[in-house]
């Protein structure tokens, strides 16, 4: 087993998390959400004031007062059944549809909802991987091969001498040495933001309710028929 006591020190986990801008990481998205909410609220107020109201100057006694916002009205047709008794006793009652034109504030029939960031998830996952490994291997091999051979022959009368010899030697040596060091860091930062619809602010609800409660049919003058 490799001796890591003398190798590079492992990364200190505490040190890795020290100095992280946690305030910015968590507070940043929340501040951005609040800013987005403010922008959406302003956009909606702008829509309400420009679309659902018309601006008029209230001039009295030669002095121009503050601007007056009057609700934009749209004309609606109200159809209701009226039971008319028969002309004579015993005649069946007649149901007549009476149409009248009424004016409704546009504000009351628009599907208004407060748009706002209703959910912010800040997922901060920081993963610090620190690892040290050392692989050290020595491979040494040596082989020696020796071989010898001798053959001698001695003869007489007609002399014959024969000498044979053979010597062989092989030797090989190899060494392998490898060292491996590895360190890695990774961080993941995820922010989920969802904008949804919230109930209308009570103030706007009160205005709409006041208008709604005062919807009363106004009989419009009969249109002159073309001759």
């Amino acid at each position, binding site marked *: 087993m490799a001796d890591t006591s003398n190798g590079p020190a492992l990364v200190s986990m505490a040190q890795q998390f020290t100095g992280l801008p946690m305030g910015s990481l968590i507070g940043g998205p929340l501040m951005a959400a609040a800013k987005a909410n403010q922008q959406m609220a302003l956009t909606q107020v702008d829509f309400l004031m420009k679309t659902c109201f018309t601006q008029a100057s209230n001039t009295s006694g030669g002095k121009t007062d503050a601007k007056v916002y009057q609700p934009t009205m749209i004309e609606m047709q*109200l159809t*209701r059944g009226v039971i008319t008794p028969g002309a004579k006793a015993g005649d069946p009652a007649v149901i007549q549809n009476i149409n009248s034109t009424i004016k*409704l504030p546009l504000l009351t*029939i628009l599907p208004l909802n407060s*748009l706002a960031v209703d959910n912010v998830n800040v997922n901060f996952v920081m993963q610090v991987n620190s690892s040290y490994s050392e692989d050290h291997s020595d491979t040494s091999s040596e082989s020696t091969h020796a071989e010898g051979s001798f053959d001698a022959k001695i003869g007489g009368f007609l002399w014959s001498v024969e000498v044979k010899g053979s010597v062989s030697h092989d030797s090989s040596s190899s060494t392998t040495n490898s060292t491996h060091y590895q360190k890695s860091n990774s961080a993941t930062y995820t922010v989920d933001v969802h*904008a949804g619809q919230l109930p209308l602010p009570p103030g706007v609800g009160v205005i709409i309710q006041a208008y709604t409660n005062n919807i009363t049919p106004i009989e419009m003058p009969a249109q002159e028929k073309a001759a």
Partner: protein
Amino acid sequence: MNTVTIQCPHCHQGSIALEPRLLLQGAIFTCSLCGSGLSVANETSTQLLEQSLDKLEQIKQHAHAKPLM
């Protein structure tokens, strides 16, 4: 569906649930109590309502599409 409920202009007791987009197509919505029907009276009002609904829809879509950061 973006249903809007208003008080009945005739009986003041019942309520009329409106679908503004269907109003543009000439739909008549009736009171739950007296049966009075409500529809858009004329072309001018239809156009005004349509423009307002389109504008509101744009605001809503823009709010959803806007990047936060």
